[in-house]
């Protein structure tokens, strides 16, 4: 199968998966042909090879949630994020609020490439927590998934 056929087949699969019988097969063929035509005009073969490599490289993701709760003070976010950066934990989402008078900072981090364990990260965060009179919890995302999603 040449590259054009491969691309067409994979686009058809995606459309079928997403829309199923909601779309007429002829319509799918028209859309697929137009996409491949556009692609052939905008991407050269070398770029296609690179694209393929990039897809394979796509980083694995494993999330954990860092929750910081306690009295507000200057520099909490700076201290916490500095430790995350030092240990290669990428921040994927961040949410800060004042809940019932308490400061609450919730950071979702990608721990797949983190260079220390959750346990060690907890110890590092514990130092900030002690210094700034906070509670810092680090929990793997699965606990929230399991408790809140069916």
């Amino acid at each position: 199968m040449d590259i054009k056929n491969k691309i067409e087949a994979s686009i058809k699969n995606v459309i079928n998966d997403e829309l199923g019988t909601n779309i007429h097969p002829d319509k799918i063929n028209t859309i697929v042909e137009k996409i491949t035509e556009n692609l052939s005009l905008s991407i050269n073969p070398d770029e296609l090879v690179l694209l393929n490599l990039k897809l394979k490289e796509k980083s694995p993701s494993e999330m954990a949630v860092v929750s910081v709760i306690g009295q507000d003070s200057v520099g909490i976010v700076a201290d916490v994020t500095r430790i995350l950066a030092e240990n290669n934990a990428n921040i994927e989402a961040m949410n800060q609020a004042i809940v019932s008078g308490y400061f609450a900072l919730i950071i979702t981090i990608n721990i797949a490439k983190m260079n220390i364990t959750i346990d060690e990260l907890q110890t590092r965060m514990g130092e900030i927590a002690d210094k700034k009179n906070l509670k810092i919890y680090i929990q793997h995302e699965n606990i929230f998934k399991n408790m809140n999603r069916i």
Partner: protein
Amino acid sequence: MNFDVSEILETIKMSALENLDVRTVTAGINLFDCTTGSINSTAKKIREKILNKASQIVPAAEKVAKKYGVKIVNKRVSLTPLSLVLAGDCGVEELIKAAQIIDEAGKEIGIDFIGGYSALVHKGITPFESVFIDSIPHVLASTERLCSSVNVATTKSGINMDAVLKMGHAVKKAAELTAERQAIGCAKLVIFANIPEDNPFMAGALHGPGEGDCTINVGVSGPGVVHRAVKSLPHNADLGIVADTVKKTAFKITRMGELIGREVAKELGMTFGILDLSLAPTPAIGDSVADILEAMGLEVCGTHGTTAALALLNDAVKKGGAFASSFVGGLSGAFIPVSEDSTMEQRAADGHLTFDKLEAMTAVCSVGMDMIAIPGSTSAETIAAIIADEISIGVINSKTTAVRLLPVPGKNVGDEITLGGLLGRARIIPVHTKSAEIFVKRGGRIPAPIQSLKN
């Protein structure tokens, strides 16, 4: 996947403020491959198998606990009933020595308890099992971690009253042998009807003969979480809403427990067995089943309405748990161990929660007459009659019931005993003093009830 801040904060609140925890991770270990024909070498093989299979249970549980920020309070091992594995021509002394070797293995791997010094005598007692039961009080007095359970009845076979009377004497003896330690031996001895084969909770945990080689069973708790949820309801919320609230909370607790159990099992290379969703109270303030009943609207736990409130709670817990996991097993319900539940203990001490009310409550909950301190002068025959009453509730209702009583030597009604740790403290409460001696000494078997004829 994104989570609401409220979802994250709720989970943190449950574990940080409301005592949500995994009460126990229990590794069930099959011992049938340890029999040798000689009791001493069998005990040594059992020790080796425990060390071989479960040596990593403590670090594995700690690792998973840290990953999810949830406490795992106890790490335990349950064994194939030792009366089946140690069976042979031997006496009490040899059994005590074997028990000590097995107990030592528990100490070496740093676990809290080992369950399985157990016998299944619901239909009959072999000569060896008779010696084995005689050894139980001595074993409990001379070991630290070993727990004992004896199944004296099933719905299928009826009640073995010879075994019931024998256990009445065993409870008395266990109390006498540990008299200087507030009869702590009795806290490690449970008499069952319809004993589950996969219960992770002590003192009744064992690894049933039908179980596989090594299995992780998990007991989750969380009376505090359920209490907080029920307490937050307005007084005019109807009981359907109360049940629904309990159910939703039980769902979340169960999901958390199964996640932890599966991870620990994976770490240890064992299969995941079941999740036992039981509201198991602890003496910690706010971790009480009685508090939940009172939050539903009872002035005190023990007053009229208590049985109905407990029935609602128990059923809602099961429904929430069954929806959350396909592998709910063990005892799964609300426990009412008096000394271990600070509010329940207080109500019993104040006379609001009586012995007879506790018996009625066990008809609608899990598990039985649990951790109740009674006068040291109570006779073995009276204890046997109490066992017979409680066991018959289980047999007739096709459910597990159990008895764990402490007839504390030298103590009378109103005296206080302190057992420490999760076992808590208790005030001695009265039992009926009129005799049932002739009844319990008749012996024989109370036939299986008509509901056993299901085939």
